[in-house]
């Protein structure tokens, strides 16, 4: 599934604090299948999350989201999370989420402008995230061209495949 950076995303917010770890997002050594993981993702922070999350919801979190192991947050995409907006992300989680690709934005101050269950609108082309109810907003920095390209190709594996085919054609 590719993600179009130019599409505006609007969804209900699930708020989390600082240093949410990948053991909690993806406790794969306790639960071995995607169906089981979907029933347990993030329960160590919010037990109701796996039961109540709806497709199209957005995660808003504090510092260091996705800290810990290099495991990807694929399960979040599988439960329907439309975007992740954080004060800061662990670099491995950021790389993973870009590579999937899944929309993830580092937006300083996001925790201050939106509360749990409120509606957030993310407009990447305009570089803004806005609380639909209150109108409060924060800036979303642009990705460097190298990263925008990964989104355009539908993820890093797809970009690798296209590069491989292009180089093979030349030879």
């Amino acid at each position: 599934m590719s993600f179009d950076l130019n599409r505006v995303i609007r969804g209900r917010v699930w708020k989390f604090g600082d240093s949410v770890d990948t053991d909690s997002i993806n406790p794969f050594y306790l639960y071995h299948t995607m169906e089981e993981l979907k029933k347990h993702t993030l329960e160590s922070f919010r037990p109701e999350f796996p039961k109540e999350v709806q497709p199209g919801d957005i995660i808003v979190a504090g510092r260091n989201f996705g800290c810990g192991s290099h495991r990807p947050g694929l399960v979040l995409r599988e439960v329907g999370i439309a975007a992740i907006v954080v004060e800061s992300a662990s670099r491995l989680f950021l790389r993973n989420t870009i590579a999937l690709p899944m929309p993830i934005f580092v937006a300083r101050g996001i925790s201050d402008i939106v509360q749990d269950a409120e509606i957030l609108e993310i407009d990447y082309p305009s570089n803004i995230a806005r609380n639909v109810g209150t109108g409060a907003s924060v800036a979303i920095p642009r990705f460097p061209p190298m990263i925008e390209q990964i989104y355009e190709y539908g993820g890093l594996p797809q970009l690798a495949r296209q590069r491989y085919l292009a180089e093979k054609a030349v030879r």
Partner: protein
Amino acid sequence: MGQTIAEKIFSRHNLAQQPVRAGEFIGARIDGAMCHYQFMDIHDLAVEAGFKDGFPRVWNTDRVFLLVDHHQPALSQSYADDNVLIRKEAGRLGIKHFHDAEPGIAHQMMPDYGLVRPGELVVGNDSHTIAYGAINAGSTGITRADMLYVLLFGELWFQVPKSIRVVLEGRQPGYPIAKDIILYLAGQYGDDFAQNMALEFTGSLVPQLSMDSRMCLSTHGVEVAAKLAVFPFDEKTRDYVAARTDKPYEPVAADPDAAYEKEIVVNVDEMPFVVAKPHQFGNVGPVDEVKGIEIDQAQIGSCSNGRFEDIEIAARMLKGRKVAKGVRFIISPSSQQVYLQCLKAGLIETLVESGVHVVTPGCGVCQPKVGFLADGEVCITATTRNFKGRKGSLNAEIYLGGPLTVTAAAVAGKIVDPKEVFDEL
């Protein structure tokens, strides 16, 4: 303006062959790629991306290191099945460095087998790949998708990190303190103070630190969110590497006028024994703050603390003593080589006589395969992480401490200042 170690490493590996500065996004040439038991997950990503039969090639069969590590011996039939597939793929792709039928942790085996050298840029699909900074290499964890790209092309995108200069001052006591140092840093500055940055260790303590201690500190760079965690090259590094490989390498040093994001000074002479309390690495306090908390389990092992000096201090303190009644003390050496070193030194006998469970080398005590915790149980461990639920129950509590603090707790049956248990210190 001079360059930091990180800037030098990325300049050396920049595909555009230009010197780089912190903050730049670059494509970098990779010297080595470490893959472990999750290799088939990367294979599956390749299939999903359209490579129907899996990887058409790896870019360099001499620079890919495949170590089954976490899952050897296989813990279930599904792991055994996966290991069969990994074996087939390693053969098909002609990967020269395949460590299959051997338990142990990749991050111990990579430097121990001379597969990584000073000055190189090495990546691995495991967050603790940052460990090789201990031998003056630029090494870091990458994701499975990143690894797919690396395996095909031997290149990867990076943002050149800013650097933090960590100045370690003071005297090395007669026991390892690396774990206390990194926990102390996480407690003082937060568990993400080095987010996306490089740590450069320096100061009067550094020449006194053993390679084992340096590896503990570099491995834990990721627990404070760092991209690299690099030690300077010195005589100890040179001797360590010379004993393991005769391939040439070029060490890397910072320029005197390099620009740092910040400088942090720690005097270890004034540092108390510390622990991380449940459930985050940065939730740190002095041991005294939690002393008296009764424990059910104690552990030493993992890529952070399964090395010779970690096990040696436990055995030295346990000689003539017993693990407290009812406490399970589990120790796992980080590799077969470390295990053998401990055996030859007589440590294993002492441990078993004292009541320690010595278990097979590997990741199992940390990313749990053995020693799960029940509701309400308390564990103190010299391993990498204490996230809620990491060892089973969401209602268990995990404390992190150095090997000495863990051993003291195992003897006392409760968390305690090691100096109260061990008069000889």
